[in-house]
């Protein structure tokens, strides 16, 4: 690093620390804010959609009027066989869903009960402790790890109304609409449903949806055609169709993008001022034979370093802040999101600084001498 740009940027960064400290500090705060918002967005998204993301199902079939909502959909047990026979379907299994309150060893808990043919389509793939119920087994359930915060352990009993199941395993990242999930048999789910929703009693063959394992490239509309009055969505689309998920994600993402744009603006203003302030010096350096590009590179190197430092410091503060956020606030600090936000911020910093290059190019070296006329 011995070029003119390197010499200038190194000198300025190391000898005017206070000034760069200010812009690095501003960037760090912005990155901190964006990362916390990102963690909140991820926390909401993953907390809402875990139950449809963390299973072996690749698609779900609904009643056509359900608009992709597991809760709203109504199908019959017999529909499973019709869909299983559809082209591109490797396996199909019933899914019953019930959002309800239940009772654990330490009191009331919010629950999302999933009744399915455990082992078949729709079975969670994120078992972290214990075991899943086996096919046909009743009176047992695997539950989301979030319930461990409510004092639930292997062997604990969870009851809904007068129906109770024994916890035999824990699965990770499987919440549904921010409620911890309980994975049990269709029979147990139906008993719980009847216990809390008496109006649904007498529908012994009703289920909510059908989980499907489809072959690669399967035509979902062709599958839906096998069951008149049904609609088929990919598991990913089902996640987005959960009420509020898409809206939350787009609201938080627009706040995040706006904040990143503010970062670009902060860097742009900082370097615009810096270039303005050094107009006389830059004119002299141009007179001495520095090209605009050599001086511009120095500005860009400084912006790059300031942005990288801002990202590192902001990320550290955000992670520390993550440790003190109460568990009731759904946050999730993901490395993917961190990398994405880091790249955005650094690009924004460079783009912001690039605006001052035009100003730099307009500086006339002739102004270094006397008063031109």
């Amino acid at each position: 690093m011995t070029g003119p740009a390197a010499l200038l940027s190194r000198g300025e960064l190391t000898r005017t620390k206070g000034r760069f400290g200010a812009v690095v500090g501003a960037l760090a705060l912005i990155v901190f804010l964006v990362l916390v918002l990102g963690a909140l967005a991820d926390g909401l998204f993953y907390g809402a959609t875990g139950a449809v993301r963390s299973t072996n199902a690749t698609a779900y079939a609904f009643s056509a009027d359900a608009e992709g909502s597991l809760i709203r959909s109504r199908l019959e047990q017999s529909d499973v066989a019709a869909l299983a026979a559809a082209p591109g379907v490797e396996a199909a299994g019933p899914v019953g869903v019930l959002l309800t309150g239940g009772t654990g060893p330490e009191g009331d808990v919010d629950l999302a009960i999933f009744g399915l043919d455990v082992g078949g389509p729709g079975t969670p793939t994120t078992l972290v402790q214990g075991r899943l119920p086996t096919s046909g087994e009743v009176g047992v359930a695997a539950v989301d790890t979030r319930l461990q915060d409510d004092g639930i352990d292997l062997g604990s009993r969870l009851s809904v109304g007068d129906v109770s199941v024994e916890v035999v395993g824990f699965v990770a990242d499987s919440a549904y609409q921010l409620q911890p999930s309980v994975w049990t048999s269709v029979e147990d789910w139906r008993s719980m449903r009847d216990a809390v929703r008496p109006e649904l009693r007498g529908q012994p063959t009703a289920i909510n949806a059908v989980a499907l394992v489809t072959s690669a490239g399967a035509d979902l509309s062709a599958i839906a055609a096998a069951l008149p009055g049904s609609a088929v969505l990919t598991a990913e689309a089902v996640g987005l169709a959960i009420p509020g998920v898409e809206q939350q994600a787009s609201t938080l993402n627009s706040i995040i993008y706006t904040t990143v744009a503010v970062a670009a603006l902060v860097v742009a203003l900082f370097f615009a001022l810096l270039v303005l302030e050094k107009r006389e010096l830059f004119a002299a350096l141009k007179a001495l034979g520095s090209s605009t590009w050599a001086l511009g590179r120095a500005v860009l190197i400084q912006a790059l370093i300031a942005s990288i430092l801002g990202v590192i410091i902001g990320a550290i503060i955000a992670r520390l802040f993550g440790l003190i956020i109460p568990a009731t606030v759904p946050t999730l600090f993901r490395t993917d999101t961190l990398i994405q936000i880091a790249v955005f911020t650094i690009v924004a910093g460079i783009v912001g600084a690039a605006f001052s290059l035009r100003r730099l190019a307009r500086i006339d070296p002739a102004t270094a001498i006397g008063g031109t006329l």
Partner: protein
Amino acid sequence: MNDSGSLLQVNDVSKVYGTGHTAVTALDQATMSVDQGEFVALLGPSGSGKTTLISIVGGLLAATSGTVTLGDIEVTALSRKDLTRFRAERVGFVFQSANLVPFLTARENLLYVATLVKTPKKAAQQRADQLLEELGLADRAKNLPEQLSGGERQRVAIGRALMNDPDLVLVDEPTASLDTALGRQVVQLLRREIKDRGKTGIMVTHDLRMVEYTDRVFEILDGHLTHVESPSTLGH
């Protein structure tokens, strides 16, 4: 070398700002030649056109008409990009207020201009140290400009002007921000460096006391350049 044998040849150079009835002639058919090893003064009140002249000579400003040649280079024919390189390689500038890079040390200020012509690092460091030594700044090499006195700063600027071994050194009012004694010291030093190295120097000044250190004096008034025989003929 050009036809006349002088290193610097300025032929009929004019500079007109604006057009039509608002046109202002800053420089009117200026002609001068300066030999290698000569140190000349360019005198004139402010607004007389002396800055315009050295800006054109130094490749900072385009002439409206006329030609400037330095050695075998026709400066007035160079493109903008070539002018940048020409200034880095062939011209040394000493500005009115030293205009050093405030966040680089005295030594780094010299090394900076060496990077513009891609001088190998070792050679550049040796030359910078040697120049600082000659200019009596060896013990100030690691100081930032703000830690130097006005005279020291101007000496660093002289070192920077000589760093790339230019043919031509252009000096703009070097004593403007110095007291008389210090001003004399700086101009004496400039003369010595220019003479010892066989450079060609032009110093713009309006300070008559400084012309005794120069070989010849040109005077410029309202854009008209005239050659004054020798410094001693100037009335005091």
